[in-house]
């Protein structure tokens, strides 16, 4: 296996955007090309596109060549589109990593994009419901909010987690998003009181517990070790990847409150990376809902099972705590444009290690970081481990 570096990256502004799917693609491309030293379109031998549902949200398929055209690229080694719902972006990064590590590719652009705000919100929600087993779970009203609401209910029932503890996750991530001008909720203040009095979406989850429908895009450049210094003096290295899936239909889910698949994926990641959870300096995790981040603290081994609520309450996931979680602002603060989310997380890792982020969210002297996306009903977990030094 060859070593693989992330050397450049950028994101568009995320939010409810007056821009089409293709326009978002072009914004991500420009963010990337302006962040890399001496990157020309002719250098790029491969393109990976993370896009969850362009067929539903933008009525467009065959999006990899469309993206290549919009960026002026003519990839001659690997051209792919990756769909893994909410993890499409990170999965695309892992595909590019595999292609470079194996020697198939040397210089790969990974672009993630989603256009989610369309004229009919009900039509968009319908498309989100097909992420579950549509004919058996979607048909019953299964979408993300009620699923994660049941996870929250069971976690509260079994471990005593509180609505206030969940709200604190949202407060922290919105606080970080206020340092991130590209985020959906930049300049919007979210206090605990505001979150706890926001409208109920699926009880016990309120609007302030939920990430949003977001238009956004991002792109990163992955290259082989020998090319890394061409594009930056401070490359970031992919140390390991891991994934696990244990069910799809909700009837086959081992537990609502324990995400066994994440525990297995994390164990694989730490073993491959030769580390344990205490080595992680910061983590970009999938806070699609506040309860998700609490369960993720536990399954990633940042705290004991059932102690996730206490972990946020004690400030252990804040800057200066045991492990800074979601310094970018998370999905709650930045928004969640499905295919772009994993790319946004990778850009944060790059900019943290390169000391390009504002001091208010900078994890100083960080050496090891992970990114995590769940997808669907937390039935897939996708993890990548990054190191600052080779």
């Amino acid at each position: 296996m060859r070593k693989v570096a992330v050397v450049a990256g950028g994101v568009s502004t995320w939010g409810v955007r007056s821009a089409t799917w293709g326009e978002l693609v072009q914004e991500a491309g420009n963010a990337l090309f302006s962040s890399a030293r001496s990157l020309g379109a002719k250098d790029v031998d491969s393109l990976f596109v993370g896009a969850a549902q362009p067929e539903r949200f933008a009525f467009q398929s065959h999006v990899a060549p469309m993206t290549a055209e919009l960026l002026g690229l003519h990839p001659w080694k690997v051209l792919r589109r990756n769909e893994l719902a909410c993890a499409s972006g990170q999965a695309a990064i892992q595909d590019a990593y595999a292609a470079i590590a194996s020697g198939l590719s040397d210089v790969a652009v990974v672009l993630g994009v989603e256009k989610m705000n369309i004229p009919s919100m009900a039509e968009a929600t319908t498309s989100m419901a097909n992420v579950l087993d549509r004919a058996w779970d979607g048909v019953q009203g299964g979408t993300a909010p009620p699923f994660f609401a049941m996870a929250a209910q069971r976690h509260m029932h079994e471990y005593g987690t509180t609505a206030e503890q969940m709200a604190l996750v949202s407060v922290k991530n919105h606080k970080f998003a206020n340092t991130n001008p590209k985020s959906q909720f930049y300049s919007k203040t979210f206090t605990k009181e505001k979150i706890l009095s926001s409208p109920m979406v699926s009880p016990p989850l309120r609007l302030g517990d939920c990430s949003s429908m977001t238009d956004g895009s991002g792109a990163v450049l992955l290259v082989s070790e020998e090319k890394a210094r061409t594009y930056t003096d401070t490359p970031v290295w992919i140390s390991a990847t891991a994934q696990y899936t244990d069910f799809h239909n909700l009837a086959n889910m081992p537990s609502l409150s324990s995400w066994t698949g994440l525990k297995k994926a994390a164990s694989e990641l730490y073993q491959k990376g030769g580390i344990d959870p205490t080595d992680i300096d910061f983590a970009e995790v999938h806070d699609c809902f506040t309860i998700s981040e609490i369960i993720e603290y536990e399954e990633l081994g940042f705290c004991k099972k059932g102690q996730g609520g206490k972990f946020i309450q004690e400030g252990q996931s804040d800057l200066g705590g045991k492990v800074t979680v979601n310094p970018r602002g998370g999905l709650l603060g930045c928004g969640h444009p499905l295919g772009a989310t994993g790319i946004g997380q990778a850009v944060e890792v790059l900019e943290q290690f390169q000391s390009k982020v504002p001091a208010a969210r900078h994890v100083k002297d960080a050496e090891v970081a992970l990114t995590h996306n769940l997808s669907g009903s937390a039935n897939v977990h996708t993890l990548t481990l990054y190191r600052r030094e080779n």
Partner: protein
Amino acid sequence: MPQTPSLLDFYPLEDEKSTRISKFFDNVRQGHFTTTRCTKDQSVHWPPRVVCPQCHGEALEWIELPKKGRLFAFSALLLGLPMGMEGEAGAVVGMVELDGWPIKIFSRIANAKYEDCHIGDAVEWDPYTLADGRVFFRFRKPAAPPPA
């Protein structure tokens, strides 16, 4: 035939031309709640399958599932309802633990208000017919017993 364009229609196509498990829907029509079980390794599937995911055998049999169960977890759909469900704000959904079976099925819970539901509440199977003649099922809170 369904009236909704198929890519916006949550309900499965259930006739013999469309699926190899049309028997499940025939059974619903006759008031039976069924699924498949592998005759080789006895694993019970949900949803019904045509190949056993455990052993990849094709010798499956139809078995009856319990029509009674209990709420293991539940929530309600208050905001962001999908097309075709916009008028159903407040609908309760939950994981139903079937009595005596190691299966929990996600279902709409009819005849229920979120505020009145508790973990462990009894629910019962509730088949229904769509306007286009297709059938499906949900669970419901049992009707309150008549006053003594």
